[in-house]
């Protein structure tokens, strides 16, 4: 019932400062969509425009079938959870949650029943008589979410709701919000700068930078087929390795020359990049695609001798910072690997999963 459509959305704070630039986005009904990007990329401003908290400089926003450009926030049938929770400090938890219903003159019995129901979902039934200052950070977060649920709005807006929680609580709340979305079956727009949150929570991810949308897609799409170097580097942790090199043709094989090391592309990939031969490119490879020589099947590059600079054993995996001929890159390897700092090991790149980017435009070539 409530798809949200953004058409050529623009927000100018002044002639020079354009926070959001011709953003086009179709958010489906019941979709969980995540806006992600570094700070200052326009994601929060976009969300605030959907909420009606910022004037729109250009373009239009539709919620459901209704054009809401000039509709005040209270009439948009939305609920928002703020980064700092924004609880009403002078009201109890119950009153905080009941406030919006009271303003709509909902019957007392119904208010009580809806608040109770929301409190039960979130496990804050015990806290209804407390004031916000008597709650812990996680509890405040729940109240803020509860306040949104009670409304039964068409669209939920979340503005970095987990960024003030500690790491463990954040993981818990993340799972709870996913369950909540499943249960409520409502449209949710979620803003975060944390790409892990984006990957784990979103049906689709919108990667933004400098006010522009960089890519829209499912988490795996964005991860596996980034449309440009920025998206490739922003999504994924540790981030993708970028090595500057030159695309060359040698005896029919197309290779990437990185400081003398030749990385051969498979025949079908070679075809796609023929036009870039003899041009500089950025070679991108994810840490998990840097493997010790001889492991697994696939199309691997020639072995490279690399020195282990830093070793980060994480238990389930090992993160290795390595250097080879002055180029540094990160690898994610199996914890059974026996190696120490300053060791030299033979690694190769999984060329089936290699990416190439145009040096100038940063657009994906392969």
């Amino acid at each position: 019932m409530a798809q949200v459509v953004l058409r050529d959305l623009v927000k100018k704070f002044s002639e020079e400062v354009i926070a959001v630039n011709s953003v086009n986005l179709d958010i489906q009904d019941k979709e969980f969509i995540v806006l992600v990007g570094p700070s200052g990329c326009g994601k929060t401003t976009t969300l605030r425009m959907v909420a009606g908290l910022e004037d729109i400089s250009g373009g239009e926003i539709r919620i459901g079938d209704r054009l809401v450009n000039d509709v005040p926030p209270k009439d948009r049938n939305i609920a928002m959870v703020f980064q700092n929770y924004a609880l009403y400090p002078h009201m109890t938890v119950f009153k905080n949650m009941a406030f919006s219903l009271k303003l709509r003159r909902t019957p007392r019995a119904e208010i009580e029943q809806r608040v109770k129901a929301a409190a039960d979902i979130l496990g804050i039934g015990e806290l209804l008589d407390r004031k916000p200052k008597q709650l812990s950070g996680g509890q405040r977060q729940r109240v803020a979410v509860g306040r949104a649920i009670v409304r039964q709005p068409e669209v939920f807006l979340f503005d970095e709701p987990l960024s003030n929680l500690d790491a463990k609580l954040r993981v818990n709340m993340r799972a709870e919000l996913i369950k909540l979305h499943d249960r409520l079956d409502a449209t949710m727009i979620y803003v975060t700068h944390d790409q892990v949150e984006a990957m784990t929570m979103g049906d689709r991810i919108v990667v933004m930078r400098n006010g522009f949308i960089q890519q829209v897609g499912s988490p795996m799409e964005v991860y596996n087929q980034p449309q440009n170097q920025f998206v490739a580097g922003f999504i994924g942790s540790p981030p993708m390795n970028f090595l500057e090199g030159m695309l060359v043709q040698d005896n029919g094989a197309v290779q990437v020359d990185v400081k003398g090391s030749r990385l051969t592309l498979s025949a079908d990939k070679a075809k796609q990049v023929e036009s870039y031969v003899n041009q500089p490119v950025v070679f991108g490879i994810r840490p998990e695609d840097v493997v010790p020589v001889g492991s697994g099947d696939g199309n691997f590059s020639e072995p490279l001798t690399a020195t282990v600079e830093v070793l980060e054993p994480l238990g389930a995996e090992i993160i290795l910072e390595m250097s080879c001929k002055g180029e540094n890159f990160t690898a994610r390897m199996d914890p059974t690997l026996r190696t120490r700092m300053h060791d030299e090991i033979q690694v190769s790149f999984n060329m089936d999963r290699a990416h190439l980017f145009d040096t100038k435009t940063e657009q994906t070539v392969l």
Partner: protein
Amino acid sequence: MWLSAQSIHFAGVAFALLHVLAGIVAGQPFVVVLGAIGLLLAYGLWRRSDSVRLGSIVLLTLYVLMRLILGVFAWRGAGAAVQVSNIVAILGSMYLVLALGRLGPAFASKRDMWLGVFISKYLPLLPYLFFALFPLYFMVVTSLKTDNELYDLEAVPFWITGAGFTVGNYGYLFEETPYVVWLINTLKVSICATAISVAIAILAAYALARLRFRGAETFGVAVFVTYLVPPSLLFLPLARVVDSLGLSDRTLALIVTYPTFLIPFCTWLLMGYFRTIPKEIEECAMIDGCNRIQALLRIVLPMAVPGIICAVLFGFTLSWNEFLYSLVFISTTGAKTISVGVISELIRGDIYYWGQLMAGAMVGSIPIVVAYVFFMDYYVSGLTAGAVK
């Protein structure tokens, strides 16, 4: 450097020595004794023995107080040497108290903790307390004296000898002067002017702090500049205004004119407070279903209570103490406020009814004290706790 441990010890001994010398030169044994005590104390501080130091500090505190009081006394009719010694001793004592504040944190061990706190927190407060409370004390004491006691040059002015005690000044005030009428007038004017000013200031401050509109900043500065125009200039044109409104000689004249300085003041005070209230809370209210006015009344105002109380208290105090407008606009005795009434009725030519004047000031300050005590709890505690993060 001037407050380092070494310089403090050196100064302490030097001051005490000077003191002893001054006493010997002036032939005043008690000054010599005090100086000797000071010397001992300074020496005790210099020694690093804990118990000696502890004792020294406690004694020093008493000594400083004693010096301050005796110093003032000994002033009259004393020789030049004693006067010099007094000045030196008083300045020296104050320096030591201030300097010891710096030494406080040096007492690091658990056992010395309270000592450190005492030295660094309370000791430096003593001179302040003295200056803050002494005028009040003097007012009370004077209001309870008979005229005979007041004009007796031999009597000590800081307390009352048994025979000189009277409450008659208060009786005179309530029976022989229209003091009660002035009190009611002052209350009426202060409450009305404050209420009007704070109500208008809340709206103005909210708009200036929160709404984005052209000229908001300029307007904010203009409000401040208005406050800077001295009343001693403003009363001239205001007198004409009051006159042409037909309000001369009526308390209404004050209710109308006090907001001219109260509104800018309260607006600035409240602007600062509104800015500390997180914007998101209000935005959340607007998403929850409030319009601006509802958000202001139901969310922002309850959170701004400490700020508003602050504005009310200051507004009330300013109106209560206002003198110039009251003097200029009111000449009928029955319409006067306390500040003007007391001086116009209790100063006749060059005769000052000191006892009654002080009694009038004393009674006049009670409502302010009551207001402060009553609101202090609200005023101190912030209400935004728990709202964000």
